[in-house]
Structures are given as C-alpha cells and as structure tokens.
C-alpha cells in the first residue's frame, strides 16, 4: 500500500513551544503542524481538499479503479433486465414478528470481567444494531463503541466456520468421539493432565460448570488469564481489607474526584455507567450552576484527562509516590518512611496540597479512583484515602466481585506455563482466549504450548492460538448463543441469542457440557437448568420470562459490604525501582481494538482514537520534549528495546504525555486476525513481560531513520483563529452567563439573500453539550451501524476520505506539554441557509419542510460542489465503491431502512431521518404529535452522558429548545449566517482557585 502521504517533515518543537508560550489570550490548536505553520502545512491547507489529491500516481488504486470500471460496466449490462424478485413468506408465522418492523431483544455483552446490558435490534431475524438497555445498571440506555461494533463481528466473513483438526475440517461427531476417549483417560487419573484456560469468567452458569468439572476431575486445574484484567485492583483490595472486594463508585454524588491513572470515562469497561454518573454533576444548563471538580493524574493523555479541570502528567513510576505523598498530606499513616520513593517536586507539592485541601473540604463527597493498570499499593492507598475522608458508604461502596473466582491472573497463567513446561498437561482446553498472542512475552506461551499432548481451542477466529492447537472449534458469538453474565454491581443478565449460529459455532457452555459427558448439549437447557436450581419451581417460568424480557434479573445486584480497613504498610508491596532519568514504557489497552479481540473489526479499526485521531495503526506515543531531545518527528520509525526484546514502531508526538514516558497500545500487530486486522500496527505484547504488565523502566529508543505513514483524521484544515470551541470557567459563567456571546463573532442576525422558511409543524434541531461530551466515540460507531456507513481503508483515510457522518474534533489549548483538551462532535449542521443547497446543479440536496437538509442519493451526480461549499466539511463522497455489495454475510448487517450508497454519490448526516419518519408515521396513526424524546438519533442513543439532545425546536417545551435557550448555546461559525440547526453548549471548567494563580 503506497500511502499518498501528507508528510510534514522538520517540525521544530522548540519553535512551536515558543509560539504557544508567547501568544496571548486563548489560543487553540488542532495539531502540531498547525502551530508550526510549516511550509508543507501551508501547502496542505492551501490544497484545502487533500482528498482530491490525484490518485493516479498510486498504482494500486489505479488498478482498483480500472477493476471498478470493468465491474460497473458489467453491472450496467445486467441492470437492463432485472430478474423478477422473489418474496418468501413464512410457512408458519411467528406470533410476534410483524414484517417490516424490528424487534428488540434484551441481552448482554461481556467484556473483560464486566458486562453491558444491551437491546439488540432484529430485522426479520437478523440482528443489525445494538442499543443500550435502559434498565441495565451498566448501560442505562447507552453503549460503548465496542458494543456498537460487535454486530459487525457477528457477520465477519473471516470468522472461523468449521471444526478443524490440524487445519483440516472434521465433523463434530469425530471431535466428540476423540474428546470422550480423552476425558475417559483423564477420569482414570482424576484429571491430572487436564487444564482449562478461560478469560475472566463472569457467567454464573459457566462458573458452575467449571466447578462441576473440577469436582469430577479433582486434579484438573482451571486457569484464568486475560491481558486486561482486574487482578491488580483485587490485590489492592486484599492489601487494604484482606479480601477480594470490588469497588463501586457513585459519581453522581461526588463533588471532588481524583482519577489516578484511571480512564474511568472512556476506556474502563464500566465507563458507560461511570460517564453517565459523572455527567450528572456537570449538566450546568439544567440546574443550579454547580459542577463537580475532576483532578487527573496520568502518564498518557486520556479522555478522563481531557475532561479534568486539573491534569498532572506524571511518569508511571511517579504515580505511586504521588499517591503516597497525597496520603501523607492527608495525614494518613502509611507505615513507611517511603525511602525508595522519590519525593514530589515543589510544583507537585503545591498541587498535592491544593488537592488535599479540596478533598478534605469535601469529605464524604469525594472519590479517589485508581486505574486497573496501577500496582496494588496505589489501589490500597486510594482505599485508605477514601476511608479516611469518609467517602466510604457515601460515594464509594464495596461489594463482592462480579467474577465467580477472582484470581491473580498473572500467577494463574504462570502456573499453567510451568505445568506445560514440566510436561504435566495432557489435555488443554482454551475457551475463547488467545494466549499465544496476548500472554506475557517472557512466558513464551507458544513454545510451552507445543509440549501439551492435545490442545483444544474454542474461539471466534482461527487466530494465533488456534493455529497452534490440534482442535479448533468455532465459537458462537454472544448474539448466537445462550449464556448469562454478572455485571460490575452483581446484576445478572441472561444472554439470549438472536440468530442461530451463522457458522455452526458452539458456546463455551456446550463445550464444557461435552467435557462433562453430555454429548448432545443445549446451551438453552444448561443456562435454564442452572437458574432453575435457585428458584421455586412453580414460579420459574414467570421469573425466567421476566428476566429475558427485561434483560436483568431482579434483585441480583450485590449489597454493599462492610469491610475492615487494615493498617496499611507499603513494605510488602512490590517496589518500583525506577531510574529517575531512564525512559519508561507504559502499556494501555487500545481505545478501539481493546486487547486485540476487535482487530478484525473494520469499524473499530477505522474509528479514530480519541486523542491521536489515528486509524488503522497504533504508535509509540512520545511527549513533545522527548521527541525534541531524540530528534524524532511524527511517523518516524523507532526501535523500542526492552530487556532484550525489540519492536519497531512509528512515533506519534502526544501533547500532554508525561515526559520520559512512551505509551504503546495493545491489540495491534496480529498475524492471524483475519483479512482486516492482520498486519496492522505493531505488536506491543512482544515487549510486555510478566514482571511489568503495565509499565516498566529500562526502555531504549533507537531511531531507525525509516518512516511509516500513519493515517490520522485530524491533520487538515486550520482554525484561522475562529472560536470553534467555546470555553469558560464556572466562575466566569456565574458572573457573566452570556460570556459565550461577548466575543466579536456573533452579533444580531445578519440579513440574508436566501428566502426565509416557515415551519408549521416540526423543526428538527440538535444541541450538543460540550460540557459532558467525554469523546468516547460511541456515537461515531453508532452512526456507522445505523446508517450503513462503509469503511474505506487506511490509504483512503490518509487522503481524508473517511466516511464517518459524525466526527469528533479534538482541540488543544495552551501549552505544548500540558495542553487543555476539548472534544467537539460534528455532525451535519442542517443549516437554515445551507450553502450546499444552492450550489447543487441537480437539486440533490434540498431543504425539507421540517428544516432538514435532505440528501437525495438517486439524484446526485457527484459534482462535489456541495462539499466544496460546506464550511463545516461534513459531507463525504464515495470516491469508490466503498459499500460492500458482494459479501453475503455483510448484506445481513445492513439497516434495511437506509440506502446503501454506491460509488459517485455524496452523503452526510441525515439526523437519522429514518427514525424521524418512523416516529412521524406512528404519531400520525395515533392522531397525535410526536412527543419530545420520541425521535432519538443513533448518536444520541449511544451517548453515555446525554451530551447529544435532538428534538423539535418549534416546541418551546422540548429539551432541545430549552438547551438552545440557555446562554451557553452557540453556533459553529455563526458569522457565516448559515444558521445551523445543530448548536453547541459551551464547555465549562471548574478549576480550583488555589491552583489557578500558578497557571496550572
């Protein structure tokens, strides 16, 4: 793939820093290149439309273009005689199915030790969209990007489709006879040679089955390992309380929050609920002007850091000392003179004392939350601080862990490897895990795996682990099989399938039942029988149906537990002996691919990472200062060396990154992911060893002189000093609520040459509250799933031809090393005076009677005048046939209510007009008006924080009209007088006055 690279070489970071330091007033910037104003960037901006860059020099796309030409000519020949279409009705119609109307089924998606309750939309038996389940405590109606993307995984044509033995297709019957014989042999020796490896098990039924198996084979062992797990948090709880407990937070009750390397707003698996609760304390427009205050201490820039009112970048090793210093500042006895920890610098000391004062002033309404990747001691310190401040029982609660058996997963996988090495393992059954790819590199899992006599792998893909196993059984997707899960607060959901396994997959329950001797297992019966045990027989049917319908089992949430705080001693804790000068390496789950399980999901691959806006790649994230010292620039390839291991990675300069720290994300560099995921990015697991799962020192960086082009979606256009994001502080807002409009850019309505429209009935509009948008990307993927938006691939993204109808712009403000960061979701503005409408020569984009800016695909001839004339750059053109018309399984994925666009057609956000139409038809049938909140756009529905509100602005009592009436409301580029229907509520910050003077 030759990227038509927009290479920008020779950035002078010192110069950039000086420019940013000397500018007065509010200075916003989108990228380093913009500030540097290099010649190349100027040229790039002058080109204005890099996506119109010539494709002809690119041999690949030229060939592809000719192929497409040939294909379309062939199709043109075909279209003359359309074959008669067939209608295949049911033979016996299911009672609840109304043809043409979707059904919603409550189910749940498990991810890394927690679960999100969802409602899956089903069109005539095929799931096409995932929505949140409003009744589920982890969802409350919203979803994360992974849940939205999971429906694509279901239809992924690269999923494994057959049972194989040593790569050859075998029947289920042959597998059954083999496994029965082997289990018989194991029975003889109490299962001494039997090992099971799972990820974190949160299914009560599966845990029960595993226990049954262990009871029958007492010498067998069950191991759990997942690359992103909660072991450190559990260990921290054990340090503090002597037992494994899970911590629950009530962010809606909190006024002061400290996030210690905790990205609880975006990448934490429970972030959907946490972001929702956090936003409750930030919705200033709704009530009294009060806000919670968020402090973030982190090594790499995360969404939580972007939302923070004060953010302190610290290298990973310094976070322990920060926590210790804070504990001591708060007067806690931590039982150590902390000799091995570096004392905080003076600047940090000020920060810590201000923070401690703030926490002390809000006793009982503060939260200290620690990220999963932090060592146990930091978790224990946070427990001690929460305890001392009286937060426990008010904003912090403790419950049993949702996991059936909380384990130190690292120890568990180590034990398994040792057993394999010793030749003790005859039969290893791997359930839905990929340890060959994701186990710590120093364990050399693959090498030891070869010593196991028979290896069975159950998985969605024939992945790295499947390749080294004798038997591979295709797993059923969660939308294909029965199961159950417990979410973070203990609530149980039954996972019900929406479709029979597309590729004959088996669930983990079914495989375990086979191991237990049931040769014709039914996942449905297994799950049902498990729950039947706990309920009175006469009431069971009603209970079961209610649980299925609601998506939650009533009264299964855990009760808060009383825990006894132990005296804390850091002596026993693992010492972090970091060289204060050395480079540190930090691992993070990828914001879009997680631990690599979503690597073959094109939607998630092309989803721009919240901070870097990179797609299709991971990168080594460096602080500007470090890049400057090493003379590195974006896209330069370096070799990262750590304890004898080395990987090559492209560099991405990350403003706000802690100095002397390199962050790499997991999940890339897979070699057997599938056609989409294989070969993207570099494999960070190669550097991840068992003594340093999350961060380590001793990293060396060696520039190689090479370059590897990266496709970032936010390198184009400049702001030209326009106030695109409006920001104020809470005190400013209290003093001058109209501060947003005090600038020069917005004045009285301008005269317009275009005709005024009148709207008799509805006038649709949207308001986006920037104060609660955490930039989590759920809306982007929700839009993609709802509107059949294609993916275009890395080369096309590099030409800025990505098709996302909704993008999230990320803006920096202020200093290069510690910038403030802001997110702004940008859908179509649906302008009242839309510049696109007047330039279309064929009337393909027109104003509707309800004020929508309609896009008529069948009229569009592809002049692209509209996109040239759009000041917001929200229109996207199908330069090629991006939509997949050919792959049979992907046809099932499409939303039948939205056209699948073809080549040569412009497209853009429609405000989910299919949902508006559906609601209007329903309302009209009932002879009433559409109620406020009845039309929910896909982005709005997915949003965990309720940042996006849509509705009828003609109705003054609607929520959107109320939002637009607040003084915080502003329009993007209002001076152009396009009168956008999408408006924004300005972002507010709530800084601590004690820290403001010092300019922190």
């Amino acid at each position: 793939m030759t990227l038509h690279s927009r290479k920008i070489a020779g950035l002078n970071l010192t110069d950039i820093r000086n420019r940013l330091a000397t500018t007065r007033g509010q200075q916003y910037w989108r990228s380093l290149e913009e500030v540097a104003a290099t010649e190349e960037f100027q040229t790039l901006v002058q080109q204005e439309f890099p996506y119109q860059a010539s494709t002809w020099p690119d041999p690949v796309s030229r060939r592809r273009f000719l192929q497409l030409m040939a294909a379309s000519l062939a199709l043109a020949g075909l279209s003359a005689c359309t074959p008669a279409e067939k209608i295949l009705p049911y033979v016996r119609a299911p009672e609840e199915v109304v043809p043409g109307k979707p059904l919603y089924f409550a189910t749940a998606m498990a991810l890394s030790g927690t679960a999100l309750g969802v409602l899956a939309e089903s069109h005539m038996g095929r799931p096409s969209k995932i929505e949140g389940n409003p009744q589920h405590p982890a969802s409350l109606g919203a979803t994360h990007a992974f849940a939205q993307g999971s429906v694509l995984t279901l239809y992924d044509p690269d999923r494994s489709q057959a049972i194989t033995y040593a790569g050859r297709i075998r029947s289920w019957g042959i597998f059954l006879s083999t496994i029965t014989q082997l289990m018989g042999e194991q029975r003889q020796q109490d299962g001494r040679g039997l090992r099971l490896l799972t990820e974190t098990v949160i299914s009560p039924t599966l845990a029960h089955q595993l226990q049954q198996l262990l009871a029958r084979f007492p010498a067998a062992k069950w191991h759990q390992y997942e690359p992103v797990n909660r072991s450190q948090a559990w260990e921290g709880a054990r340090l503090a309380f002597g037992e494994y407990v899970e911590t629950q937070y009530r962010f809606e009750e909190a006024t002061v929050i400290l996030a210690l390397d905790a990205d609880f707003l975006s990448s934490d698996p429970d972030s959907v609920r946490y972001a929702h609760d956090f936003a409750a304390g930030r919705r200033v427009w709704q009530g009294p002007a009060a806000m919670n205050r968020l402090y973030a201490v982190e090594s790499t820039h995360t969404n939580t850091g972007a939302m923070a009112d004060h953010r302190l970048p610290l290298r990973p090793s310094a976070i322990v000392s920060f926590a210790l210093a804070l504990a001591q500042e708060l007067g806690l006895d931590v039982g150590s003179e902390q000799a091995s920890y570096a004392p905080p610098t003076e600047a940090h000391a000020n920060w810590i004392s201000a923070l401690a004062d703030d926490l002390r002033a809000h006793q009982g309404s503060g939260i200290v939350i620690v990220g999963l990747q932090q060592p146990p001691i930091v978790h224990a310190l946070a427990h001690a601080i929460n305890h001392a401040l009286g937060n426990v029982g008010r904003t912090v609660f403790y419950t049993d862990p949702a996991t059936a058996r909380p384990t130190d997963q690292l120890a568990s996988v180590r034990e398994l490897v040792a057993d394999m090495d010793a030749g003790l393992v005859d039969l290893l059954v791997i359930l839905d895990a990929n340890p060959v790819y994701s186990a710590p590199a120093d364990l050399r899992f693959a090498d030891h795996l070869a010593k196991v006599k028979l290896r069975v792998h159950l998985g969605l893909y024939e992945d790295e682990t499947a390749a080294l196993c004798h038997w591979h059984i295709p797993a059923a997707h969660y939308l294909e099989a029965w199961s159950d899960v417990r979410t973070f607060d203990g609530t149980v959901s039954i996972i019900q399938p929406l479709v029979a396994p597309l590729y004959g997959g088996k669930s983990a329950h079914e495989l375990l039942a086979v191991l237990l001797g049931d040769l014709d297992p039914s996942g449905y019966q297994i799950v049902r029988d498990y729950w039947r045990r706990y309920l009175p027989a006469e009431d069971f049917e009603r209970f079961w149906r209610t649980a299925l319908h609601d998506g939650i089992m009533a009264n299964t949430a855990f009760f808060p537990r009383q825990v006894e705080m132990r005296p804390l001693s850091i002596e026993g804790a693992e010492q972090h002996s970091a060289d204060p000068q050395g480079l540190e390496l930090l691992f993070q789950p990828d914001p879009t691919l997680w631990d690599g399980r979503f690597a073959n999901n094109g939607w998630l691959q092309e989803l721009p990472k919240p901070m870097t806006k990179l797609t299709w790649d991971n990168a080594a994230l460096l602080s500007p200062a470090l890049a400057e010292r090493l003379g590195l620039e974006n896209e330069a390839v370096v070799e990262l060396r750590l304890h004898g291991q080395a990987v090559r990675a492209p560099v991405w300069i990350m403003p706000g990154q802690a100095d002397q720290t390199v962050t790499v994300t997991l999940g890339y560099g897979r070699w057997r992911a599938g056609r989409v995921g294989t070969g993207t990015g570099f494999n960070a697991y190669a550097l991840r060893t068992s003594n340093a799962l999350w961060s380590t020192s001793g990293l060396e960086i060696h520039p190689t002189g090479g370059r590897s082009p990266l496709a970032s979606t936010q390198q184009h256009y400049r702001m030209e000093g326009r106030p695109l994001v409006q920001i104020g502080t809470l005190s400013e807002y209290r003093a001058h609520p109209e501060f947003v409009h005090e600038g020069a850019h917005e004045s009285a309505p301008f005269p317009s040459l275009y005709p005024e429209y009148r709207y008799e009935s509805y006038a649709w509009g949207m308001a986006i509250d920037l104060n609660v948008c955490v930039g989590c990307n759920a809306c982007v993927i929700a839009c993609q799933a709802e509107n059949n938006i294609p993916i275009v691939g890395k080369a096309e993204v590099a030409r800025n031809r990505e098709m996302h109808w909704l993008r999230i712009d990320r803006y920096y403000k202020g200093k290069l090393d510690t910038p403030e960061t802001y997110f702004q979701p940008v859908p179509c503005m649906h302008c009242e005076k839309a510049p696109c409408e007047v330039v279309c020569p064929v009337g393909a984009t027109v104003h509707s009677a309800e004020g929508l800016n309609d896009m008529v695909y069948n009229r569009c001839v592809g002049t692209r005048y509209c996109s040239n004339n759009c000041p917001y750059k929200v229109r996207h053109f199908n330069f090629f046939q991006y939509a997949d018309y050919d792959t049979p399984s992907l046809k099932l994925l499409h939303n039948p209510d939205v056209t699948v666009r073809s080549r040569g057609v412009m497209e853009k956000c429609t405000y989910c007009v299919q949902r508006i139409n559906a609601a209007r038809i329903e309302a009209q049938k009932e002879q009433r008006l559409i109620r406020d909140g009845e039309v929910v756009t896909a982005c709005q529905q997915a949003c965990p924080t309720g940042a996006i509100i849509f509705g009828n602005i003609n109705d003054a009592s609607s929520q959107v009209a109320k939002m637009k009436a607040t003084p915080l409301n502003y329009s993007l580029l209002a001076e152009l007088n396009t009168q956008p229907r999408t408006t924004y509520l300005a972002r507010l910050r709530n800084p601590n006055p004690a820290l403001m003077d010092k300019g922190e």
Partner: protein
Amino acid sequence: MDRWRVADCPIGHVGQGVSVSYRRRRPPMFYRTSLAFEEEDRVRSPAIMSQIFHPSTNTISRVSIFGAVFLVAALGWFLLAILRSSYVTQAGVIREQPVPFSHEHHVSGLGIDCRYCHTSVEVSGFAGIPATEVCMNCHSQIWSDSPTLAPVRDSFRTNKSIPWTRVHNLPGFVYFDHSIHVQNGIGCVSCHGRVDQMPLMWQAQSLLMEWCLECHRQPERFLRPREYVFSMDWQPPEDQLALGRKLVHEYQINKELLTSCSVCHR
C-alpha cells in the same frame, strides 16, 4: 478527402488553377445553386465535368437539417414513451406465480377482506405476504387434493416458503410505507387497481415517481374516508376535491412535507 487529390484530376496535365476549381466546387451546396457552379466551372476549366450531386440533394439536405431537430425530438419522445411503457414499468403484465392465485375469486367471489392475508398492512410499512398456514386454514379443508395447490401443501409439509414473484417492486432507494397510506385514506384500489377483477395479479399502475407525485402534490384528488380504504368499489363523489380538502384537514396531512425528498428517500 482523397477523391479530390490533384493526381485524380480527369484532365491530362496537372495545373494549379484546375485543382483550385475542383476544390472550390466541393463545399456548400445550400447557399449556391449547383447550376451556378457548373457555369463557373465551364468558364474556368478546360474540360467539362459531369455533375456529382443531383439537384434534389439540395432539398434532401434542407429537409434532413430541419428534420434532425424533429428526429431528435421524436427519439426523445420515443425513449420517454418506452420508459413509461409497460415494457419497462411492467404495469399490466401478468407475473407467473408458483400457484395461479386468483384475487378475483378470493376477493369478489368469496368476499375475503384484504387484511385476512395482508395482515400487517395497517401497522407496518410492508403489507405482508400470507404465510403458508394462512392458505392452509381453508385449503386443508377445501380443494385439499387439488393439483394446483400442490406447492402450498408441499410448502406446509417441508417447511419451505412458497417463492412468490414480487409484482410491485419499488427501487431500493424508495421507502414506501403501507400503514400510513391506509391510515390516511388512500384506498388499496388507488395503487393496486381493481384487484377483485384480476384473475391473476398484475401491477395496475406505472409506479413511476411522477405517478407518486400526482397524489403527493395534490392528495385531495385521491383521498377517501378511512372506512372505505379497503373497499373495492368505492366511487369518488362529484365534489371529490371538497371531500379531499376536508380529509386533508381532518387527517392532519402536511402537504408541504409530502413533497420533501426525505419522506420517501433516505
């Protein structure tokens, strides 16, 4: 034009004047008469040459130049006529079906309501094609051994759908919703024709966008009271426009919206 090369000159020697005269003779015939040419040639050239074009060429050329305009127009008309013809729209063309189902017999003969089979017409965009079991409700009792109905019984036995051929096929970018049309007083007959008189099913209307717009622009011309939607023989009253206007108001039909693109295309 090789024909006019000097070497091909009919006279024996080659001279510049000659070739000029030939060249001059070639071009436009419609603003000089050929006679004038001949005379000129006779004066200038040493040998007299026979006339290449008959005088009638002038007329022909005139007619063809002016005719071309009409020809293009005729061609255009012809193309449009083809596009609107039942060859393209398939209107009025009987589709072959696995079972020769007669709407005429079932609707006018037996008096079965549309909604007995097309169950979702009032609630969903798609009117619904009856499941095999709906056919079998009656045909397990009557005509239960008719060879014509063998595919129905096969379907019921084997649990495989009857592959009906779609009669009304809208393009993929059109999103038609039955329920709202039925609700707002558009009779079945308005689009599907007198189904009760169709022994085999055909498409009664062109389904072209101009046909849709006839009603979307002026719904009052076609609306009927809701209670007559499923009636096959309802006749519009003399003052249909008055009735239509009343119904537009009563059913709260937003006429402006009906011609917004996104109402049908999205």
